């Protein structure tokens, strides 16, 4: 008896119990849907995160005040005020691989415009901030080096701040108040969206760091919490970071036994950290998908055992007509595999639809990989084979006489 005929036999018997076959495949469908959506959404998320990290700036390096350990415990990793202007000068003088560097200070303040107020992050930076962050303005202009030198009270606002404070009003040349000090809005930043950690990048005000230090934060020693840097080339980004580390250790007079009292991150470090986080998430989701597939497989084994019990007489008849143990074994294994593959195909279709739908909702690009579809269908066959084997073995081991006289 050829396999095509056995395949048709499997289809016929599944067709006879449509509802049962459907219910049996549900477990498999759920498992495959989760594999497909996890893989495609995970892929999309990774792409989105990568895009965001690239969006941090051009060959971006950031130096934060405070040891890595300390930063881990401080909220938001804002950094301590331990970076001095002479640190910045030393870096600029001794390090060749840098195109731009800007000091950074930041703190959260309440911003008032007429009757509206809004709490957001206020950052102080240098005039080259936009180049380092690879960012643009949609309206107005950025502050100049002269503005920085003179500590001019001007502010660049993010999209979210604009929306909350101004609504549809043009904010340019309007006056906002922070700690009751007036600042003139001179520019609006292009929309960036949310960071992978959920932080809204557009919920931000940028002003000259000198203004922020003196007028708002009461910093009189000129120290910063951070330096943001743009390296000349991607290839030398990590090397430059190492050089900066060496310069700062010298500047801060650290002995070889001392830990860094600052932290240097490159774009690569952030990419690696986020990859590691995605990896953990993927493993977790993969485990969940595997569990649902195994549960689905057990469901199939259950139903196949019922099917074998129900069809004892048919098995007896087939044996009387000359079916060998292998014929019966293959017939029932094939039936289990066919159920699994049907569940798999339905699961792939639903999984693709769900992924596309989630992609539309989140505004993420969704990549449905052929790999995930192939993996899904292969796991279906493996599950059918594995969980169908025991019931099929039981069927093929029946004694012909006992099977025939079964009531």
């Amino acid at each position, binding site marked *: *008896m*050829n396999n095509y*005929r056995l395949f048709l*036999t499997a289809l*016929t*018997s599944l067709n*006879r119990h449509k509802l049962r076959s459907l219910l049996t495949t549900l477990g498999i469908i759920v498992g495959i849907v989760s594999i497909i959506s996890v893989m495609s959404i995970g892929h999309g998320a990774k792409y989105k995160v990568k895009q965001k990290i690239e969006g941090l700036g051009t060959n971006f390096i950031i130096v934060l005040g405070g040891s890595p350990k300390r930063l881990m415990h401080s909220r938001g990793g804002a950094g301590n005020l331990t970076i001095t202007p002479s640190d910045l000068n030393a870096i600029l003088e001794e390090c060749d691989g840098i195109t731009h560097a800007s000091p950074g200070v930041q703190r959260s303040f309440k911003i008032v415009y007429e009757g509206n107020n809004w709490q957001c992050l206020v950052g102080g930076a240098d005039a080259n901030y936009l180049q380092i962050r690879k960012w643009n303005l949609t309206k107005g202009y950025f502050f100049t080096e002269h503005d920085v030198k003179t500590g001019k009270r001007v502010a660049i606002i993010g999209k979210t701040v604009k929306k909350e404070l101004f609504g549809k009003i043009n904010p340019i040349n309007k006056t906002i108040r922070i700690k009751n000090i007036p600042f003139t809005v001179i520019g609006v930043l292009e929309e960036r969206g949310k960071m992978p950690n959920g932080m809204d990048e557009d919920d931000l005000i940028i002003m000259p760091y000198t203004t922020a230090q003196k007028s708002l934060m009461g910093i009189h020693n000129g120290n910063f919490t951070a330096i943001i840097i743009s390296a000349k080339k991607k290839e030398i980004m990590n090397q430059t970071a190492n050089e900066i580390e060496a310069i700062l250790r010298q500047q801060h007079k650290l002995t070889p036994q001392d830990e860094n009292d600052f932290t240097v991150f490159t774009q690569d470090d952030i990419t690696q950290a986020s990859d590691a986080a995605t990896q953990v998430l993927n493993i977790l989701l993969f485990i969940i998908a595997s569990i649902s597939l195994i549960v689905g497989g057990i469901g199939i084994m259950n139903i196949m055992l019922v099917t074998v019990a129900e069809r004892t*007489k*048919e098995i007896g*008849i*087939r*044996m*009387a*007509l*000359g*079916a*060998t*143990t*292998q*014929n019966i074994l293959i017939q029932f294994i094939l039936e289990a595999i066919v159920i699994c593959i049907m569940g798999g195909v339905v699961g792939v279709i639903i999984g693709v639809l769900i992924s596309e739908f989630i992609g539309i909702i989140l505004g993420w690009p969704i990549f449905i990989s052929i790999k995930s579809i192939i993996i899904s269908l292969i796991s279906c066959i493996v599950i059918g084979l594995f969980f169908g084997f025991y019931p099929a073995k039981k069927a093929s081991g029946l*004694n*012909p*006489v006992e099977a*025939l006289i079964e009531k």
Partner: protein
Amino acid sequence: MSLLKTVKLVKTYKMGETIVEALKGISLEINQGEFVAITGSSGSGKSTLMHLLGCLDVPTSGQYFIEDKDVSKMTKNELAKIRNQKIGFVFQKFFLLADLNATDNVALPALYAGIPENEAKKKALSFLELVGLKDRASHYPYQLSGGQQQRVAIARSLINNPAIIFADEPTGNLDTKTGDTIMELFTNLNKERSVTIIIVTHEPDIAIKTKRIIDLIDGQIKSDKKL
């Protein structure tokens, strides 16, 4: 050379603590072309004997030869092959597969024999024609009367040109008239194609239509008469 030969065939079953001796040493010979009835009341062991002769079961002791080959020592798969090639079965309740139409039911043993699908179907059609059911070839069992279903079963039993056909109460589920036509069919098959036919029945009216009656009582042969 005899077609079938048994030597002191014994079959015992364990039912709980007690051991039931269904067959207590049956020795018989059946030759090519015979038309035999195995009779006996229920519990006489006639069904057990048919299961052993039909290679559906193995004896507890004794020997069984088909065409001088010792069947009692064969493996499961060797027995499956013997059933497929040498033996055809006709059952009281027809035992057609409900999902298959008449042609596919008849073709099934040929498919198990490894005959290609097209050829098997062609063969199946010719045997359906032989039993007078050519016009019912694509009907499913539920669309056929009892007599027609039994004819399909007979066509199925013939498809691999077996040496022996075992029929277990073949008329038991049919009315007398239909039963008679089925018996006629067997008689003709025996006469015209010299197929060896062994009918297991408890009805004397059926047994009398054969040429030899082996009567069993309590697992032993009570009488063996040629008519």
